[in-house]
């Protein structure tokens, strides 16, 4: 029994509790019953709630049109609508008798209140009261449950039931927070004076959130007229005071200064802060002493508020207090606020100090470079020049402003000290320092002159370069620098003609002129510069005066024919006019000459008479055109010049004198030999441009490029003697049809010049010079020159004969390629063909075959070489028009070949087991080796081969190849 009543038997090793099965079943049934009850309860109430909700929902759907009808009913409605409206009223009154319906209608109206606004909302409030639904809320106010009371107060408040005001005031000091807060909102909402009552009577705390809600209620009321809230500043409820302060600030009630000042002394920090905020907002300056007084005993937040107010309201007298706070106050925020307040009162009185490096000891580095733009130089430097000097001819464009204004800060380090910045004069002085040239800087007198004139200081600006400036010089050749004074220079400068963009000041020119001897300006550096000179004082005036009348004639012709010479009408004009009609020839000596516009092909470089050294002002007339280009130019000029000029001997002579005085001569580094040879070449060229005697051209570069001015004295003599001009016919080897048939060369009479020319030809010429030399030999009168020409002709002729042979290249051998791909038998046949068609080029190839591994090939190669040599020899004799062929050799060769071929033929027949025919019909076949012979072998060899084919030997040779072709198909 016991075992049967137990669910589990006791098993070994398992000690489970003994439970009666009946008890277990009882417990199971119990819990199942409880669960069923629970679910039944749940389902019951769920269905009940659902039904209620559905019923409410259905009721709302039914009541909604009715409510809408009541809400949107208009007095101007039709009678049907009015009768319908009356019916609805009756119907709803019947419905309202039911609590459920009342509740549903109340909910509908409350829900609609949230979704509608405006006039509909007002109608809704009115309907709510008309239907008497508010009375239900009044009744709920008596409920002991706080949620019902609260809900009732809320409904009354939402439906704007003013009658509920008196009922809700009872709940202002209710112990239950929810009811009290709802009552506070209701009182403030239902009546405007409700806030007064609330502030007067409330004894409880007004939470921050409640204050916000109350203020929001007041704010939403557009018609609200706020009371003077200062009245509640004296409230014993500090929350009321605090709320009153906030309302005062919100409604800008600034009539509570005294109370506000007193409230600064309040114990409560919130009230203090609110009072200080009001003081700052209403700008109550009288409160400053009070807030200063309470500062030290206030909290950090209050201190910050006080400092904020002092910053807004305070004056400089309060800075001392703020300084004191800065020193005494420990709190960083308070100190920072004190700084802020000080700066607010007196801006920039406290500058940032943390992390700022002291730059008092900073200085400007001495090696700092300040670059000055061109525009600044124009606007600054030349303005000063214009102020200090009266150069009327120089136009200074002071209106030009630099596009990129260079400020000192751009070039100074960022940590430049204030001391350095405070010295603008020095910096400007540095900016104005101009480096004209290194040579000019080295000239102390120049610098002294500049510094005296107060214009430019250049001693410290070595890096500045003014290469871009054109160099304008005034020539003073005849007048010694020592005799010049400054006054004279100004006079002369007024007569200067300036034809350039930018000009140096006159004093600069003067100083440079004085220091001519010390300046070492290379001519090449100034070669690019145009030259403007005043010719008035550069030559011997006495000589000019004597010959002026005679010169005019020539000058007139120059002007008429030579457009390169521009003669200004007046020396006082600042620039040369472009209109050539303004030029006058009578004042040629007073006019400047723009040399670089002269189109005369004067290539020589002149030098002044008195210039033992290089004169920077005596700018060279240096033509940098290469020789080849020069020749072309001259040739073109000669072609274009259809009319030349004829100068009478006297006029020509006088004109050359004038030119000698006008033109600066340049010293050139040249050997004296060349100088003597070429001394009159430039002048002659120049003169011949004006004369129609001959077309003049130059062929020698030395003639065009160099002349010694020491020989200028001999110029007149040369002119008087007339240059010897003769024609030299240019060899056809040099000239083409497009060039001139002949070029007139000015001949130098000296033997040395001829020898020099021959030396050059010997050094650089070759066999192509032979025709020229032959022509020179015909025309030459000097014996030494003649011998030299002959020697050169022989030299070049030998050179032509002793041409180096062409580089021997191994000829291409067609058999070599064939040998690579064929067998021994084919090689043997090919070797036979070599004899027939080969030449000496195959000998090398055959010699290579002598070392072949196959003895048969090497052996035959030796034979073929022999035969080929014989053939070549025979061909050579044929070429040499020797028809005496060594018949013995030929026969010998034929015999050798025949024997060899027969041997091969027999061996081949034996190998192929072919019986040779008894008759010789096969030899009647026509062989096909004629075609390649036609191409390669010459006529003689063809004849030989033809004979060979006709012979038995030839037929045998072809027979073997024919057989092989047949065997190959």
């Amino acid at each position, binding site marked *: 029994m016991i075992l049967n009543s137990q669910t589990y038997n006791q098993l070994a090793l398992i000690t489970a509790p003994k439970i009666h099965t009946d008890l277990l079943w009882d417990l199971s049934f119990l819990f199942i019953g409880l669960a069923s009850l629970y679910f039944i309860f749940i389902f019951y109430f769920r269905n009940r709630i659902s039904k209620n909700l559905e019923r409410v929902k259905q009721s709302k*759907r039914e009541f909604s049109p009715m409510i809408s009808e009541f809400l949107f009913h208009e007095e101007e409605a039709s009678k049907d609508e009015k009768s319908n409206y009356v019916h609805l009223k009756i119907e709803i009154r019947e419905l309202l008798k039911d609590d459920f319906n009342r509740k549903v209608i109340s909910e509908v109206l409350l829900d609609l209140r949230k*979704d509608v606004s405006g006039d509909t909302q007002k109608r809704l409030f009115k309907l709510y009261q008309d239907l008497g639904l508010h009375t239900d809320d009044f009744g709920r106010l008596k409920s002991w449950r706080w949620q019902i009371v609260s809900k009732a107060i809320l409904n009354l408040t939402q439906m704007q039931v003013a009658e509920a005001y008196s009922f809700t005031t009872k709940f202002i000091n209710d112990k239950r927070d929810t009811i009290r807060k709802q009552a506070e909102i209701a009182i403030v909402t239902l009546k405007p004076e409700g806030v007064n009552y609330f502030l007067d009577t409330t004894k409880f705390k007004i939470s921050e959130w409640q204050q916000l809600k109350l203020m929001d209620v007041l704010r939403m009321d557009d018609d609200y007229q706020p009371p003077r809230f200062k009245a509640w500043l004296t409230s014993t409820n500090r929350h009321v005071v605090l709320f009153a302060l906030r309302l005062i600030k919100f409604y800008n009630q600034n009539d509570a200064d005294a109370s506000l000042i007193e409230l600064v002394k309040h114990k409560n920090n919130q009230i203090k802060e609110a009072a200080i905020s009001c003081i700052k907002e209403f700008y109550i300056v009288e409160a400053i002493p009070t807030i200063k007084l309470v500062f030290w005993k206030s909290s950090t937040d209050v201190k910050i508020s006080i400092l904020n107010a002092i910053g807004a309201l305070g004056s400089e007298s309060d800075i001392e207090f703020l300084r004191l706070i800065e020193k005494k106050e420990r709190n960083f925020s308070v100190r920072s606020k004190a700084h802020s307040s000080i700066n607010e009162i007196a801006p920039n009185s406290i500058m940032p100090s943390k992390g700022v490096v002291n730059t008092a000891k900073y200085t400007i580095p001495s090696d700092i470079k300040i670059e000055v733009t061109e525009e600044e130089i124009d606007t600054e430097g030349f303005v000063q020049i214009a102020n200090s000097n009266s150069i009327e001819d120089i136009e200074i464009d002071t209106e030009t402003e630099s596009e990129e204004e260079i400020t000192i800060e751009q070039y100074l380090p960022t940590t430049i000290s204030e001391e350095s910045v405070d010295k603008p004069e020095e910096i400007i002085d540095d900016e104005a320092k101009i480096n004209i040239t290194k040579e000019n800087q080295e000239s102390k007198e120049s610098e002294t002159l500049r510094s005296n004139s107060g214009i430019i200081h250049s001693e410290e600006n070595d890096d500045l370069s003014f290469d871009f400036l054109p160099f304008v010089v005034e020539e003073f050749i005849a007048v010694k620098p020592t005799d010049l004074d400054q006054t004279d220079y100004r006079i002369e400068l007024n007569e200067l003609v300036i034809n350039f963009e930018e000009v140096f000041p006159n004093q600069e020119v003067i100083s440079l002129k004085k220091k001519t001897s010390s300046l070492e300006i290379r001519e090449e550096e100034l070669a690019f510069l145009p030259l403007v000179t005043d010719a008035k004082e550069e030559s011997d005036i006495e000589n000019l005066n004597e010959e002026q009348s005679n010169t005019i004639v020539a000058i007139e012709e120059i002007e008429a024919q030579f457009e390169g010479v521009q003669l200004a009408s007046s020396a006082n004009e600042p620039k040369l006019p472009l209109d050539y009609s303004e030029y006058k020839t009578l004042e040629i000596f007073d006019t400047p000459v723009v040399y670089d516009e002269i189109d005369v092909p004067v290539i020589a470089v002149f030098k002044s008479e008195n210039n033992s050294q290089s004169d920077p002002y005596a700018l060279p007339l240096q033509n940098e055109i290469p020789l080849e280009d020069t020749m072309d130019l001259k040739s073109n000029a000669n072609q274009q010049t259809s009319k030349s000029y004829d100068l009478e001997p006297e006029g020509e002579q006088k004109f050359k004198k004038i030119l000698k005085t006008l033109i600066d001569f340049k010293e050139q580094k040249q050997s004296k030999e060349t100088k003597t040879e070429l001394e009159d070449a430039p002048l002659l060229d120049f003169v011949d441009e004006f004369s129609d005697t001959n077309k003049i051209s130059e062929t020698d570069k030395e003639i065009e490029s160099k002349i010694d001015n020491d020989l200028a004295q001999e110029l007149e003599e040369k002119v008087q003697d007339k240059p010897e001009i003769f024609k030299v016919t240019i060899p056809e080897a040099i000239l083409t049809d497009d060039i001139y048939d002949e070029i007139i060369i000015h001949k130098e009479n000296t033997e040395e010049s001829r020898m020099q020319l021959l030396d050059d030809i010997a050094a650089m010429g070759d066999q192509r010079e032979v025709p020229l030399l032959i022509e020179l030999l015909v025309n030459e009168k000097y014996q030494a020159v003649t011998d030299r020409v002959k020697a050169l002709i022989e030299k070049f002729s030998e050179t032509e004969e002793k041409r180096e042979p062409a580089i021997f290249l191994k000829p291409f051998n067609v058999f070599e390629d064939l040998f690579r791909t064929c067998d021994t038998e084919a090689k043997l046949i090919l070797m036979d063909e070599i004899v027939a068609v080969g030449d000496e080029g195959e000998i090398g190839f055959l010699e290579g075959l002598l070392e072949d591994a196959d003895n048969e090939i090497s052996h035959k190669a030796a034979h073929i070489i022999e035969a080929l040599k014989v053939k070549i020899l025979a061909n050579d004799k044929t070429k040499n028009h020797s028809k005496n062929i060594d018949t013995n050799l030929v026969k010998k060769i034929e015999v050798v070949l025949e024997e060899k071929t027969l041997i091969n033929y027999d061996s081949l027949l034996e190998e192929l087991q072919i019986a040779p025919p008894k008759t010789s019909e096969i030899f009647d076949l026509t062989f096909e080796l004629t075609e390649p012979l036609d191409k390669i072998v010459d006529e003689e060899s063809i004849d030989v081969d033809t004979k060979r084919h006709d012979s038995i030997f030839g037929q045998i040779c072809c027979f073997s190849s024919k057989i092989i072709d047949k065997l190959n198909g």
Partner: protein
Amino acid sequence: MEKKKLLLAEDDELLASLLNFRLVKGGYEVKVSSDGRAVKEHLAEHTPDLIISDIMMPYFSGIELIDYVRKELNLNTPIIIISSAGNEENVLTAFELGANDFISKPISPSELIVRIKRELLKV
């Protein structure tokens, strides 16, 4: 004169009923739909003259409705959006998608009538 057909999409039955009553009284023929699916079904068969739609609706929001009408149906029907206060972002989105006007709750039925008239006049 034929009445203008309005489609009112509002899930709040009370408000929908109230507006429906007011609009019918204003002379319009109103079709009320309580959710987005019903709106789509109705739009598949009918083309209203104007659509009044709440933004927050079950199944199919007012934003999606605008997008559906404009892009899928390619209708230029004026759409007035009803939005709750503080829901300005959705209003901006609605305008970007093609809404013509909007009105926020609480709704003044009189104001809504004015806006409807204005939009219909534009059409």
